[in-house]
């Protein structure tokens, strides 16, 4: 029983991290319908930038985080305005190829600059173990879960309560009607992609302080993020959280009780089963069928 509780706690913590790393993709893939294979690479840029700011330059963690978020937002906006906007409305093949080209470029350029070594973002939180009954967690992980929840809530409020969030939702429901209502949709597309990139970068830096930032993990991050978004349902933050938690707990339990070899396959198997049984995802709306 104690083992089960420990595995469950580990799963929930990792699941929150999965949800965080998939948040950006929830916007870009779930709302904008861009199958963004460069998502993991934006995450990598965030992690590497965070490492160079905190470890190399010795900046404060939260100041560095703000810089990372801003830089990634600018990068995301530029990517959308100069690349994505040119292939918008041509189906998913050009965007997939475009983002794959981008991810090859980013990964290999990052490899040229920092090499393959795993790099650690300097964390402001102590790595002390906390004993909660039979369950052991480290302080830094618990703090990060709190930050994750804050970021997820903030993004949710931004989309649901602010006027720019309303403009975003209008644009992705019906771009033409939104334009007629006076929304500058080109800006909204750029802003949404920028927000997605900023969230990906923030996730990369935050998780780089617990695990490591590495130039080559982008592909794996992208795949897991796609799994989380599809499990939860397209474009829903509640779905991203649920998808992340399900994936985290399922992997932790499978790894603890069955075998560690196939842990990475769990997510893919879940997605295949999910799309066969519930093609709308757990929280998707019915007009967003697979």
């Amino acid at each position: 029983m104690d083992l089960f509780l420990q595995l469950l706690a580990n799963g929930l913590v990792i699941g929150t991290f999965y949800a965080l790393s998939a948040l950006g993709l929830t916007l870009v893939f779930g709302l904008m319908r861009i199958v963004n294979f460069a998502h993991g690479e934006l995450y990598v840029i965030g992690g590497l930038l965070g490492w160079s700011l905190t470890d190399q330059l010795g900046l404060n963690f939260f100041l560095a985080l703000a810089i990372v978020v801003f830089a990634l937002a600018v990068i995301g906006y530029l990517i959308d305005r100069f690349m994505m906007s040119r292939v918008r409305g041509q189906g998913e093949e050009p965007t997939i190829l475009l983002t794959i080209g981008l991810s090859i470029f980013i990964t290999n350029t990052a490899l040229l600059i920092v090499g393959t070594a795993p790099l650690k973002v300097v964390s402001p939180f102590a790595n002390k173990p906390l004993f909660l009954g039979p369950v052991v967690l480290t302080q830094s992980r618990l703090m990060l879960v709190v930050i994750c929840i804050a970021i997820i809530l903030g993004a949710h409020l931004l989309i649901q309560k602010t006027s720019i969030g309303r403009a975003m939702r209008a644009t992705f429901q019906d771009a033409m009607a939104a334009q007629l209502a006076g929304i500058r949709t080109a800006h909204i597309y750029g802003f949404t992609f920028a927000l997605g990139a900023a969230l990906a970068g923030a996730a990369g830096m935050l998780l780089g302080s617990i695990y490591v930032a590495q130039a080559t993990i982008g592909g794996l991050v992208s795949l897991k993020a796609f799994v989380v978004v599809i499990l939860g349902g397209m474009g829903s933050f509640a779905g991203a959280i649920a998808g992340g938690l399900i994936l985290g707990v399922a992997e932790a339990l499978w790894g603890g009780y069955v075998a560690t070899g196939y842990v990475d396959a769990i997510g893919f198997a879940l997605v295949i089963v999910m799309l066969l049984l519930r093609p709308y995802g757990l929280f998707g709306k019915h007009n967003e069928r697979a």
Partner: protein
Amino acid sequence: MVFERNFLLAAFAVAVLVPLVVQGEYAMHIGVLIMFSVMLATSFNLIVGYVGELPLGHTAFLGIGAYVAALLSSTFGLAFHWTLICAAVIAAIFGLFIGAITLRLRGPFFVIVTLCFAEVLRLIANNWIDLTNGPMGISGIPKPDWAMSGDVLQQKVSFYYVGIGLAAITLYLSYRFVYSNIGRAAIAVRENRFVAQSVGIWPFYFGLVTFVLAAAISGVAGGYYAYYVSFVGPEVFGFSFMISMLIMVLAGGKGTLVGPVVGAVLVVLLEEFLRDFKDLRFSIFGLVVVAVVLFLPQGLMGFITKRHEAYKVRQARDA
């Protein structure tokens, strides 16, 4: 149709004559790679170009073909042609299974779920050590009889000619398929699914037939690759083969039989050319991909067709 046939026949003649002019091991190695890529790109194009969905896990069939050929030849000592037939059949069975599940989905979901299947197969190849020898892979695949004689150059030339034969069979089958009733029905589905359904075409069935054919061709390509490299590891299921295939087809021009052939030749040559740039080469390759999407959205063949049509319009106006 006539243009495609003539172009493919001309390409076949050129490919057969090349070893008489260009000599050398390296040239033959590139030739073998081109033939392998032509098979892969043609099979991938059958789904992208004629079903209109993007199977990002097409390496599943390549990998299965490669593993089947490797296991059958090294464990049971089966001859080259038998293993290739087995590779085609088993890849086709997997194609039937995976296609039956994934062709219910559309757009991005189809993309991701096919990718999931390829990843699951890669993880199985990595972990089922009794069968696949895990990450170490299967090495020492015996050479087929026809590649035993002569020096290294002679062996490469043999591989090259067998590759031409296989690629020619692939293209002949694809040609007959695309211009058969099944192929025309598939094009109708691609162009407008609802109109096609209203005249009695069952999209799922035609999609599945195309999917199975493409899987079988990929399986053969995988078997050929396994014999040539004489080593198979889990990376045959990996994303790098997928990226090459995707770029060949979309840069060459999807939905035509000529496009993927041109794309395969160009991409293989580009990858070899970029070797001079050493560490920079992958970064440059990524930029080239981005540039192709932005500036040649219909692929090379689409670009040529458009120019050709504009030219004809101008001529008609001048006359």
